[in-house]
C-alpha cells in the first residue's frame, strides 16, 4: 500500500545554505493494508520527518514514496486531495492542533468544505455522529465546545474521528499520546488497536518503546535518520540484534525491573553526546 524506497531528507542550514543537515538517510519501508508499524527513535532520529514526508507536508530530497504504486511527490490539486482522503495525520500536541480561537468541531467542518460540499445537513450530522461513536466520544460532550474546554484525550480522539470521516486507509500518528496523562493514554492507544482490527493501517511514531510494543505488528528502530533494526515487533523487542536497540531497551524504565546501573564516571548516554 505505502512504500518508501531509499527516502532521504536533507536540509540546508547556515548562511546562504552552506551546510547540509541530513535528517533522514536512505530509508526503506513498506506498509501493507491494515498493518501497524512503529517508528521508534529518539529525538533527531528522523521519525517525525518521515511522517511528514508521508503526509506531503515536507518534500522528499532523495528516493521516492509511493502509495498504491503512484509517486506521492507528483500529486497536485485534485489528486492530492484524493490522497488525503486515504492518508491522514494526527500530531503530538492536542492544543497546537486546534486553532484556539475557533470551536473544536471546526476541524470537522473544514473537511466538509473540501470533500463533502454537497452533503446535506442531516446526512452530515449522521456521518459525524458515526465517526464520534467509533472513537467513543459523546457528541453532546464535544460538539460546540472550544478546545480549552476539552481534555487532551478528547481532543486527540476528535482528531482521529476527523480522519475517520474520510474512510482513510492509513493514519500517521506522530507521538499522539505522549502529551496525555498515563490514565488517558491507554484509552487512545486501545482505540488505535480497535481501529487496526477494523482494517486501518497505522504508522505509529513514538520515542516510547513500551507504547511501540503495545499495538504494532512491525517495529522499525531509527537512529540519526537511518534504520538500525527492523522486523516483527516481538522479535525486535524480544531478541534485539543491534547494540543500539539493546541499549535503548535497557534504558526504558519499567515497573518491577530495575535498571542495571552504569557505574559513575561513565555517564555518556547511548544515543548522542549530550
Amino acid at each position, binding site marked *: 500500500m505505502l512504500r518508501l524506497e531509499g527516502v532521504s531528507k536533507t536540509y540546508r542550514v547556515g548562511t546562504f545554505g552552506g551546510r547540509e543537515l541530513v535528517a533522514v538517510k536512505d530509508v526503506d519501508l513498506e506498509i501493507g493494508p491494515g498493518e501497524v508499524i512503529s517508528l521508534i527513535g*529518539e*529525538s533527531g532520529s528522523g521519525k517525525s520527518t518521515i511522517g511528514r514526508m508521508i503526509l506531503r507536508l515536507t518534500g522528499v530530497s532523495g528516493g521516492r514514496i509511493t502509495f498504491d504504486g503512484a509517486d506521492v511527490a507528483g500529486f497536485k490539486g485534485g489528486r492530492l486531495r484524493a490522497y488525503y482522503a486515504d492518508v491522514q495525520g494526527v500530531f503530538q500536541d492536542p492544543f497546537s492542533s486546534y486553532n484556539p480561537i475557533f470551536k473544536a468541531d471546526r476541524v470537522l467542518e473544514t473537511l466538509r468544505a473540501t470533500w463533502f460540499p454537497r452533503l446535506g445537513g442531516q446526512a452530515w450530522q449522521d456521518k459525524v455522529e458515526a465517526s464520534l461513536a467509533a472513537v467513543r466520544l459523546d457528541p453532546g460532550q464535544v460538539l460546540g465546545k472550544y478546545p480549552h474546554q476539552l*481534555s487532551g484525550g478528547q481532543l486527540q480522539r476528535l482528531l482521529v474521528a476527523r480522519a475517520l470521516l474520510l474512510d482513510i486507509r492509513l493514519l500517521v500518528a506522530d507521538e499522539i499520546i505522549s502529551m496525555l*496523562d*498515563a*490514565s*488517558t*493514554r*491507554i*484509552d487512545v*492507544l*486501545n482505540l488505535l*488497536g480497535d481501529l487496526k482490527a477494523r482494517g486501518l493501517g497505522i504508522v505509529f511514531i513514538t*520515542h*516510547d*518503546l*513500551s*507504547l511501540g*510494543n*503495545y*499495538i504494532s505488528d512491525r517495529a522499525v528502530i531509527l537512529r540519526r535518520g537511518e534504520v538500525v533494526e527492523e522486523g516483527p*515487533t*516481538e522479535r525486535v*523487542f524480544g531478541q534485539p540484534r543491534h547494540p543500539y536497540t539493546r*541499549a*535503548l*531497551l535497557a*534504558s*526504558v*524504565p*519499567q*515497573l*518491577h525491573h*530495575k*535498571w542495571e*546501573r*552504569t557505574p*559513575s*564516571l561513565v*555517564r*555518556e*548516554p*547511548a*544515543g*548522542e*553526546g*549530550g
Partner: protein
Amino acid sequence: MSLRVDNLKVWYRTLRGDVRALDGVSFGVADGELVGLAGESGCGKSTLGKSLTRLDGRMRHVGGTVELDGKELPIGDHAAMNRFRFKEVSIIPQYAMSAMNPTRRIGRLVAELLASRGVRLADVHQELVRRLELVGLAPEVLDRYPIELSGGMKQRMVMVLSTLLNPSLLIADEVTSALDVSTQKAVAETLVDFRDRHYVKSTVFITHDLSLAYQIADSIIVMYAGRLAERAPTDALAATPRHPYTRMLLSALPEVGVRYADRRLRGIPGSPPSLLDPPTGCRFRDRCPLAIAKCAEQPPFLEVAPEHFVACWKAS
C-alpha cells in the same frame, strides 16, 4: 527528619476564585532519602516543588508549615527565603534550556550565581570541575554559551549548578520529561549519585512517570487533586498498592512485552475534579470503582503497613 511538611496549603489566586492546588499536604523526607513524587497533571506536585523554593505569581501560602533540618522555612516571604535558596534548598527546573541566560557564557553565569550567595568562584572551582567531569562534561563547557550545548548537556549543567553548594534539600521538577530515554537514564542515575556522594542530603523527585520513579526512588508518594493518595517504600508500592487510584494507574502502564492482543490495559475513565471548587470528601470518589457512602468524608492519611500510608477508607 530532614524535611517536614505539615498540612501545607498553597492556593492560586485567579479571577474566578482560588484554585486549591495544594490542599493540606503532610509528609516527611528523611536525611539521605530520595522520594519520588508522582502524579498526573493537575495533582499539585509541581506546586509542591515550587512552594518549597519559590512561590511565584499568583501562588499564596494559605496554611501549614515547612521545616527543614528543624528550622521553619518562610516560604510565604520571598525575600526571607533568599538566604535558603541554592544553599539549603535548591531546585532543578524542568526545562534546562530556558534556565540559563543565553547571552552569558556559562562560567560567568556560575560566577554571578555564586557571588549572589557570597561565594567566590575561585574557591569552589576545583569542586565544580570535579563534578562536571562526574556528569560527563568537559571543564571547557564553562567557556561556552548555553546554545552550544545539547539538551542533555544543558540539563546536566543545570544539575551541577543547582547542587554546587551542597543543599540539604534538592527538588528535581520533571527533570527528565524533555529528554530521550537514554539521557533520561543518565540524568536519573546522576541524581542518585549526587545523593550517594552526599552532594545533597534529601531529594524530592517530581515526575509523572511512575516507572521512572520506581527506578531510583527509595519511597514514592502518589498525589491526586492536591492531596496525597498513597506513600510507600518503592517496592511495596509496586507490589502491593493499596489506594484504588494507584492500582488503576499501575495497571494502565504499558510495558515492553505487553501486547494489545494479549492483555487489554485499561485507563481511568473521567478526569480529575476542578480545583476551583473541589468536592468534599475523597477527591477520587467520582472515578473510583470502590467508592462507598463514607467516601463523602475525607479519609485521613493513615499508616496501614510499616512506612506505608494510604488515604482511603477501603484500604485502611
